[in-house]
């Protein structure tokens, strides 16, 4: 089952947000909450047909379109969209027509920038070469393939259904169609060895994609995998082995000229992912989707049924929080320190972090100066960056 939503204040009745001024770019996330089966490790907000209870996949895009109209009413004039990301779930379960209708609606409401990055998350098992051709026609410019692993044993542990052989022809076709390509990988599944991970990396690199995301498996409470590990049916994960796998991935990916830009991301930076780290503005459409607009974070009702109802009753949001100035600064440190861009030196001063603490971490080789005004995490420090942030902020 999906993880719980945060607790926040109720959505304002007058649909007016109290917005902090700024010059943020604007982005859209579109959530497609469907999967054919639920994978054992997944705690994302997605539902199989039998969990949906009266929500139709074939007409679901119409609800997304009404939320786009709602967001237009709330936001008014916005800069043209710099990126759109259609995620899930399994967005490739939507037909190209459905995707096209959503993109058209976004374009009509806010306009798409000329270089707008439009990504679709796709799973190898629900994608065909023909389908890729169709989505290019409706405006997709980038495809992110949920490969996870090339080791069939690992795929089985993760409950993934696809045949790893299917990946290469799909990526080849995507490239021929002019799409920017990315693959998602997961390492650290119980039973996976460093050797197996190394083979997965080789296969992924052989695809020659523009971008690779490599995430360590997180065993989320409440998932089938967490239960299997608790009962001993599946062995435990090891954070130390995960660390080794991460370091190995770093060497392999950077060796193949995929430059690191965020803890788990390498290659041509995704416009959309970067928007999250840089606290740009984005509206998340669909059940359980999260938005950030000028210091307001809000999130939609989780289940498609309650989402649909809330939307038709007025507003889809289940909660909202207005960030304080201090929280915005803390988030900036938390998020930007994950990236190659790092943070400005003066952010530490604004957060009253003693300079000695920062100096200590530079001396320990976890942080480095990048130019005179910027501090960023070193290769060594990437793996402990959350710990560093806690240390700086709990002083």
């Amino acid at each position, binding site marked *: 089952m999906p*993880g719980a939503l*945060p607790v*926040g204040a109720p959505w304002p009745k007058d649909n007016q947000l109290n917005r902090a001024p700024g010059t943020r770019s604007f982005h859209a*996330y579109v*959530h497609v909450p469907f999967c054919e089966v639920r994978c054992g490790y997944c705690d*994302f907000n997605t539902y199989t047909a039998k969990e949906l209870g009266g929500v139709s996949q074939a007409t679901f895009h119409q609800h997304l379109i009404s939320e786009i109209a709602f967001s237009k009413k709330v936001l008014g004039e916005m800069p043209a969209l710099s990126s759109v990301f259609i*995620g899930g779930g399994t967005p490739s379960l939507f037909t190209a027509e459905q995707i096209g209708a959503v993109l058209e609606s976004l374009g009509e409401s806010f306009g798409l920038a000329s270089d707008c990055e439009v990504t679709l998350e796709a799973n190898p098992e629900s994608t065909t070469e023909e389908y890729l051709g169709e989505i290019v026609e409706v405006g997709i410019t980038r495809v992110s393939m949920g490969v996870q692993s090339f080791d069939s044993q690992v795929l089985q542990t993760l409950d993934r259904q696809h045949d790893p052989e299917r990946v290469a022809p799909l990526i080849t076709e995507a490239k021929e169609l002019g799409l920017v390509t990315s693959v998602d990988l997961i390492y650290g599944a119980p039973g996976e060895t460093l050797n197996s991970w190394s083979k997965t990396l080789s296969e992924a690199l052989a695809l020659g994609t523009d971008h690779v995301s490599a*995430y*360590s498996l*997180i065993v989320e409470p409440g998932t089938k995998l967490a239960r299997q590990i608790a009962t001993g049916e599946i062995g435990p994960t090891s*954070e*130390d082995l*995960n*660390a*080794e796998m*991460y370091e190995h991935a770093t060497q392999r990916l950077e060796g193949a000229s995929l430059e690191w830009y965020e*803890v*788990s991301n390498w290659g041509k930076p995704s416009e959309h992912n970067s928007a*999250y780290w840089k*606290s740009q503005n*984005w509206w*998340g459409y669909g059940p359980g*989707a*999260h*938005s*950030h607009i000028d210091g307001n*974070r809000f*999130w939609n009702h989780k289940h498609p049924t309650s989402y649909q109802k809330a939307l038709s009753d007025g507003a889809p949001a289940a909660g909202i*929080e207005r960030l304080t100035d201090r*929280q915005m600064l*803390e*988030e900036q440190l*938390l*998020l930007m320190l*994950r990236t190659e861009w790092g943070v400005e030196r003066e952010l530490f001063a604004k957060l009253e972090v003693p300079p000695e603490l920062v100096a200590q971490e530079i001396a*320990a080789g*976890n942080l480095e100066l990048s130019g005179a005004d910027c501090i960023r995490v070193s290769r060594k420090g*990437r*793996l*402990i*960056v*959350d*710990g560093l*942030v*806690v*240390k700086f*902020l*709990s002083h």
Partner: protein
Amino acid sequence: MSPRAAKALEPSQTPADLIRNFCIIAHIDHGKSTLADRMLQLTGIVSDREMRAQYLDRMDIERERGITIKSQAVRLPWELEGQAFALNMIDTPGHVDFTYEVSRSLAACEGAVLLVDAAQGIEAQTLANLYLALENDLEIIPVLNKIDLPAAQPEKYAEELANLIGGDPDDCLRVSGKTGAGVAELMDLIVKRVPAPTGDSDAPARAMIFDSVYDSYRGVVTYVRMIDGSLKPRENIQMMSTRAVHELLEIGVISPEPIATKGLGVGEVGYLITGVKDVRQSKVGDTVTTKTKPASAPLKGYAEPKPMVFSGIYPIDGSDYPDLREALDKLRLSDASLVYEPETSAALGFGFRCGFLGLLHLEIITERLEREFGLALIATSPSVVYHVRKDDGTELVVTNPSEYPDGKIAEVEEPMVKATILAPKDYVGTIMELCQTKRGTMMDMQYLGEDRVQIRYRLPLAEIVFDFFDQLKSKTQGYASLDYEDDGFTVGDLVRVDLLLQGERVDAFSAIVHKDKAYAHGVRIAGKLRELIPRQQFEVPIQAAVGARVIARETIRAIRKDVLAKCYGGDITRKRKLLEKQKEGKKRMKMVGRVEVPQEAFIAALSSDDSKAAKK
């Protein structure tokens, strides 16, 4: 019999022969607070609407743990055969650590209700308190509680009680605090059997302070029992031990909320407020008299309770030190047994070495300091008092293991206790085994009835202060009960075991243990610390050592990964909430050298695995 006196007697105008002062002696869990609740309801001083469980237990800790820590004195109106009476019920704690509070309450009464669970029978602690009550010449009213329980065996335990205090098993009243059955009969019996207080109403005033609490709005609230004479508002009163004079701003009774009165007369129980803020000016056991007509001799005070267990208490944030001092000063007002003096630790900075009556007392004090005063604290591993004689003949009293001298020791003496354990006979073997491992010597064993046994052991106090009671409970499925008393000092073969983090001795982890147990202790503590101290950015070696000899070692490997791979589809809120939680956790860490040590490591390292399992 009536549920409530038609006209309650007015405090200060009540003749002594219409007053009954009584307390309830009971083992923890035997239902004293529930019985008290029923009395409050039955006498009508608390309406059904206002009623809540354990009404008299004021502190959060008391309600949560289901134990009474502080005494309470409540005035209850009652009518018997057309005559109104005023009954003062003095609530008493029931845990082995708080015997001193019981003694104080007993001295304010003429009678005691001996309350025993009809499904469990009398326990060691109750026996000890019964003994104290008999020493104070109190009239004892035996009562069996919880007769509504299916497992109740009132006949069996009435017999047991009759054997203990004499009399007929049929005289033992049967009540249920839960249903209220028999409670009215008990009230009648208290009026009939408990003697009225005696005292000279014309003599100079003498009031015994039996408890004293600090109230942040009203200052010091002092609970007294009038022995002779009377006190009135606006009078100048004098504390006989210090000669300090205060104006009596308010005087009254508790029923069960404070009610100001025109005074207190002979035999009455109530409270005084003088506006005093300094806690040490209202000492438990002192005698209050008036300035204009002072009494010539004070009442016999209480024996000052002796601390048995010592622990260093340190603020996690060094700048909280003055707040900690103030908080201790306030707690001490209502807890005469709490003693403390400043000390310094190389690892922990400035703090206080505090003396406690037992481990529960330590836990409660640290919990109250944290909760009521908002302090984040570290309590070091508890220690007892050692008498050390060095080769050169100098003698030391050591309450802090880190002060235990290195080498050149001629002799060490450790405190001993006489422990009385009551349990069903099936557990005798288990109990003996436990006492043997704790270096105990059996004194005697006797059967109390057909299946209950009283076993007495002489044990080193150090062996029982940590987790003996928990182990005893878990090994006997909760059936055994324990009481212990001081039994002097005995020479022991003891050594100091030190713990080193990154090669540096951490004084707060030092412990004094028997030589034969040093190795096991070292291995266990080093292992515990490895579990409790989180991985740091660098490797942390842990060593246990006796003198220069290392007896155990462990290593906490450096942390390799401390980052979340993913931000869930823009759910930054979730990530920030996690950060906030981690920040809170970090605040409960103490820097020892370069190593972050969590608060719980300081005390949890000392409890055994057995007791930990039992608590769960």
